[in-house]
């Protein structure tokens, strides 16, 4: 059985971090997104099937803020793809443990993708496995692993999930 939440449950600053993360992406403020991570950090997009079989390959893996920023700059200027947006839903946040100002959480996410022609689709669902550090009221991701439920990606991933 996982440990109990601290009184008051998941700190507000962490819920706020989750919302800020989603809006940086969904509202096209990608440049603000790397700042939500510590440096160094770990950001990975994995698939559940690989994780469960102990296979280490990722769709995306970044271990520094600079690498996160490279993803943003490349999406803005170098890579080319049909413009689209995501909309994030995050739910069932669960605090796994908290020690020395570091919180480990598990949550469910769902992301829809909207193309410029107005079509909308269920793009990804899965879990976030997070390590968040709280320092001076500010929360940052030391680690966010996105575990997609699906091994198949609809065409491409150009924006963070």
């Amino acid at each position, binding site marked *: 059985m996982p440990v109990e939440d601290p009184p008051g449950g998941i700190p507000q600053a962490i819920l706020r971090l989750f919302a800020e993360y989603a809006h940086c992406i969904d509202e096209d403020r990608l440049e603000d997104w790397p700042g939500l991570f510590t440096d160094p950090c770990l950001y990975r*997009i994995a*698939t559940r*099937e*690989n994780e469960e079989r102990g*296979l*280490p*390959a*990722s*769709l*995306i*893996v*970044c*271990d*520094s803020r*600079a*690498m996160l*920023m*490279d993803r943003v*700059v*490349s999406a803005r*200027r*170098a*890579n*080319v*793809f*049909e413009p689209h947006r995501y909309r994030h839903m995050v739910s069932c946040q669960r605090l796994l443990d908290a020690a020395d100002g570091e919180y480990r959480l598990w949550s469910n996410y769902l992301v829809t993708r909207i193309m410029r022609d107005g079509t909308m689709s269920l793009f990804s669902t899965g879990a976030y496995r997070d390590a968040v550090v709280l320092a001076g009221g500010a929360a940052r991701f030391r680690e966010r692993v996105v575990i997609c439920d699906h*091994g*198949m*990606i*609809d*065409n*491409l*991933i*150009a924006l963070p999930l």
Partner: protein
Amino acid sequence: MAEREPLIAWPEGGVTRAPYALFSDPAVHDAEMRRIFRGPVWHYLGLEVELPEPGNYRLIEIGETPVVLLRNGAGALRAFVNRCAHKGTMLLYEPFGRVDELMCVYHNWMYDLDGCLRSIPFARGIGGKGGMPDGFRMEEHGLDRLRVESLGGIVFGTFHPDTPPLAEYIGPRLMANYRRITARRFRVLGYYSQYLASNWKLYFENASDPYHATILHAWATRLKLNRFTMEGAIEMSEQGWHHLSWSRMASDAGGEIYEGAAFRSGQAAFDAFELNDASVIDQWDEFGDGITTAIQTVFPTFVLQQIHNTIATRHLVPRGPAGSELVWTILGYADDGAEETAARLKQGNLIGPAGYISLEDGMVGGLIQRGVLGDRDKASVMVMAGDAVETIENSRASETGVRGFWTAYRGLMGL
């Protein structure tokens, strides 16, 4: 049979033209499933390392047909259509696993690992009533079997009796790179796939087309990872069906022709574009030949890839006339050290649906699919380096690879 009449009229220009009707016509699609996918070609079925033990199996789709590749009790590789001989139920539906026999869930007809029917529940009926008739012969109701060949740890299968041996099919010239990549035992690092909203041929043209590589993938061009001004070539198999495209990054000369050229990579957006953390492109010369990119195709649906130190197989599955799925198997070698594995994993950012160097490949097919739908009687034009299908040394300014694909296609389709 009606299907022997030409499905479409091929325009003047032979393999320098591909009529757009080929990318959306359902009748063409049905004919491809028979004439090409059941024809004298080899299909990727999986890897030896995926089946270490007797009883290990993996599933794969060949065109519209579900197939199981397994090791029988003696450790021999077998491939069958994943379909019960009774009423057609798929026998297995977990992608990978281990079995002692193949038992159909519906009525539990049971087959051994050589595909022979071994038992049928109530075959003798109940109380002497019912059951299978005397005339029924179990040996006539086994699983449909594919011919299998394993080469360098990669397993292929074919439905057709006349398909030449695999090494001969690939051809001596392209076997060189095939051996180069498969010399060491593989280790599987992971799997993923991409759904592509475009006809399967549009992706395979793309994989056979080095011409687009340094242009569409401006990220890599800008970072000088792959340019036509490097040493490289397009090599074609003897019969012209398969291609290999390779380049040596270190050899770049005259790259300045990319600066300010009328390419996207020469445009303003790229001024001062560089990586903040270049560790993603750290690589080492693991084959000792300085070749940094080598893309090899095996008609109709297989790609063997080396991009820097990322090794992968890609297998293409048609999903009707307007879609396809590209299945990636990400590889290292069994004798990789921790550092090499770490580097391959980090270079993983370059490939796949989120890959800096590959994400555009999924997109262009969709742009073509929608672009050509309204004009099925028009055709693409592929005349770079003329109309020949031939190896071209030290230049990749050619569409010979794509013309090679269409050469195989027309031959098998009778078009």
